[in-house]
């Protein structure tokens, strides 16, 4: 199914403010449910105001159909897989043996929310100085931090992106 421009479903994302465009191949309700993850994250929305995404898309238009998401740095194109197989989510949260944080999403929408955060993590990392990336690497490799998933062990960038969603959830639980 081809993605269609859906700026009217994008809230709290505002097309032209947080992203250049928004496309979805999903119906309205699941599209809105995925984006709802950002409703309680004003800091991230402010970041996206300062550093707008390019095209944001919920579809199957990924380099490979089994990927959960992708981020193209030069174009700032962020795609979240809207057609990932059910076997790729609904897993027990058995960190650190979990393949990825998104695999513990209870349903497609929650798995997509987690992959969305993972890819936004790459967008954030693009805006950080190399020195900060070195600091993330030191933290990730220190032995004091526990990578949240197998995917988080791949390198410091994946460590940051996999952890980002959990950080958001912990913040929300505290507030």
């Amino acid at each position: 199914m081809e993605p269609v421009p859906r700026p009217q479903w994008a809230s709290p994302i505002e097309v032209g403010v947080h992203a250049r465009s928004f496309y979805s191949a999903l119906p309205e309700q699941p599209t809105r449910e995925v984006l709802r993850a950002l409703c309680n994250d004003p800091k991230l929305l402010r970041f996206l105001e300062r550093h707008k995404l390019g095209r944001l898309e919920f579809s199957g238009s990924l380099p490979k159909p089994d990927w959960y998401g992708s981020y193209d740095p030069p174009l700032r194109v962020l795609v979240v897989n809207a057609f990932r197989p059910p076997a790729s989510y609904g897993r027990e949260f058995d960190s650190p043996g979990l393949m990825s944080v998104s695999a513990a999403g209870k349903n497609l929408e929650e798995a997509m929310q987690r992959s969305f955060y993972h890819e936004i993590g790459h967008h954030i990392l693009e805006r950080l100085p190399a020195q900060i990336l070195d600091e993330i690497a030191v933290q990730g490799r220190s032995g004091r931090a526990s990578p949240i998933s197998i995917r988080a062990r791949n390198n410091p960038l994946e460590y940051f992106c996999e952890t980002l969603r959990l950080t958001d959830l912990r913040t929300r639980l505290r507030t």
Partner: protein
Amino acid sequence: MEPVADYSELERIGNELFDRSQAGTLDFTAFQRLFHEAIAVCGPDNDSMEMFCPFTKPKGWWDWMVQELQKTSSRRVA
């Protein structure tokens, strides 16, 4: 998802990608070598291959990556 034969191998590849990028020594030859090593470990369909995306900033690298991935057939069509 295809089975991953050796997660520690993916970690080695991912960390070499990152360290070379930080050191300014990630040229296209090294990127291509690491990309093919990762495919040999986990297959092109595995979501872990997404770790190459952040390193495709130089012109043409993203297009090369996508072409290489699409040379290989996928088990499932979205």
